[in-house]
């Protein structure tokens, strides 16, 4: 491990959160812009505190303490068992640097993943519920799956357990993005669509209020994503210096091709490039490319980015009008759809010394675990939480906007008030 470089990479991760925050507030309505940004800050803050207090214990780290059980003569490592409240670090100053690095990385990673669902709940998800959901995410959902993949849990031990290659996720396509995307899907289902979105059962376009901020957010997200990919790959896969450079190149390539694919797809379908979908294509490329960031060849990354950018456009067109899923920021298509594609693509394109089908099988097992264990867990937890802290703002708040309703003041007080904001319906 190269500690200085790893630290710099970790410090870049908040830029990814900044980028995502700008994207989802820009794609929402102006009357909820301040709420969206404050929700992002609160989500990051709560995730950091809860992850240090609880999540870091359950995420653990490779070589650390873990809970195991025995099944059919095999020892299954299923949860970290480090001391709660991160007391292990403070009580042992001579401790190796590695746990401290994992903790620092986990704080930002848990925060970044926990704010992905905010994008799907823009304009109607209450702040208190966002905070509670972020706490749940950082305490339980993220640490459990991160342990399985990154802390020598059972998905990382498929070789000794079952003679298969280990499930690989170098940059967090599964651990951050697919988990966040699944949480976004759950939130979108629980909240339901924004009022006026499906007038007469036909999807109505509610355009984002500031596309310039969305596109600026894409640039910030690229820098943050490079840091995220490099930090995760250095910490959990011990990539070499040359592979770190390859990670940087691949991140730029995947984002670029994702964006270009979305530009071309929307040009072909709508006769003009769509800026918001192109921004989504950029992020989708980053997400898909992160699964194998330091190992894939640039050519494979270009292909993965192209598919991700095209896929995200098609998914948005399917989820919104056909499945009645109102996802203003496109989080489900971008983080879930492109993330799953990235995980699968790793099986097809990653260099391997063993048989290729075994690597594909391993990646499929990871996808099956995400869909079959993590999604039901996320959705049940969200539904329980919704009973105690209602997710959705009331009908008046929906039209009034989250800024005035929950914060008491708008983000742009000098702007002209939209005609429909205070009109009773």
């Amino acid at each position: 491990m190269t500690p200085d470089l790893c630290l710099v990479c970790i410090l870049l991760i908040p830029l990814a959160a900044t980028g995502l925050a700008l994207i989802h507030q820009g794609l929402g309505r102006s009357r909820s812009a301040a709420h969206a940004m404050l929700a992002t800050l609160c989500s990051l803050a709560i995730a950091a505190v809860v992850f240090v207090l609880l999540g870091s214990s359950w995420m653990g780290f490779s070589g650390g303490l873990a809970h195991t059980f025995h099944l059919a003569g095999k020892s299954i490592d299923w949860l970290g068992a480090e001391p709660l409240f991160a007391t292990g670090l403070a009580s042992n100053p001579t401790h190796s640097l590695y746990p401290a690095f994992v903790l620092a990385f986990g704080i930002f990673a848990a925060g970044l993943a926990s704010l992905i669902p905010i994008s799907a709940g823009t304009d109607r998800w209450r702040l208190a519920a966002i905070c509670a959901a972020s706490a749940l995410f950082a305490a339980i959902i993220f640490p459990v799956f991160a342990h399985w993949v990154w802390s020598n849990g059972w998905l990382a031990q498929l070789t000794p357990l079952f003679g298969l290659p280990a499930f690989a996720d170098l940059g967090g396509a599964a651990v951050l993005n697919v988990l966040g995307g699944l949480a976004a899907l759950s939130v979108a289902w629980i909240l339901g669509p924004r009022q006026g979105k499906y007038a007469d059962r036909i999807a109505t376009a509610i355009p984002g209020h500031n596309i310039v901020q969305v596109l600026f957010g894409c640039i910030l997200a690229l820098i943050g994503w490079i840091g995220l990919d490099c930090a995760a790959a250095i910490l959990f896969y011990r990539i070499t210096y040359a592979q770190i450079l390859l990670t940087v190149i691949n991140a730029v390539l995947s984002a670029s091709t994702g964006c270009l694919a979305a530009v071309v797809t929307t040009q072909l379908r709508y006769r003009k490039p769509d800026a918001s979908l192109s921004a989504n294509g950029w992020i989708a490329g980053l997400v898909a490319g992160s699964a194998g960031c330091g190992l894939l060849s640039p050519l494979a990354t270009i292909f993965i980015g192209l598919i991700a950018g095209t896929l995200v456009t098609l998914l948005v067109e399917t989820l919104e009008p056909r499945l009645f899923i109102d996802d203003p920021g496109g989080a489900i298509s971008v983080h879930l759809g492109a993330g799953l594609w990235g995980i699968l693509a790793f099986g097809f394109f990653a260099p391997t010394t063993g048989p290729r089908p075994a690597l594909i099988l391993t990646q499929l097992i990871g996808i099956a675990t995400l869909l079959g264990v993590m999604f039901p867990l996320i959705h049940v937890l969200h539904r329980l939480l919704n009973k105690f802290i209602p997710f959705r703002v009331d009908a008046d708040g929906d039209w009034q906007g989250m800024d005035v309703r929950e914060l008491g003041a708008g983000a742009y007080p000098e702007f002209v008030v939209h005609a429909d904001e205070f009109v009773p319906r």
Partner: protein
Amino acid sequence: MLIGYLLMVSGWLLVLASLFLLAGFGQRFTFVVAGLLVELLGLTLTALRYRSLQRGPE
């Protein structure tokens, strides 16, 4: 909706069972793919249920 959730979990159990009980690569691959298909069926059922809730009565 409950059936959808149960199918998703059942699909994963099928995947897990194939790892523990089967040794041949072909058998494992088949059962893992079958498990994934069961999960996707569960996800589809849940999605359709939510769609009908959002659309409201005909």
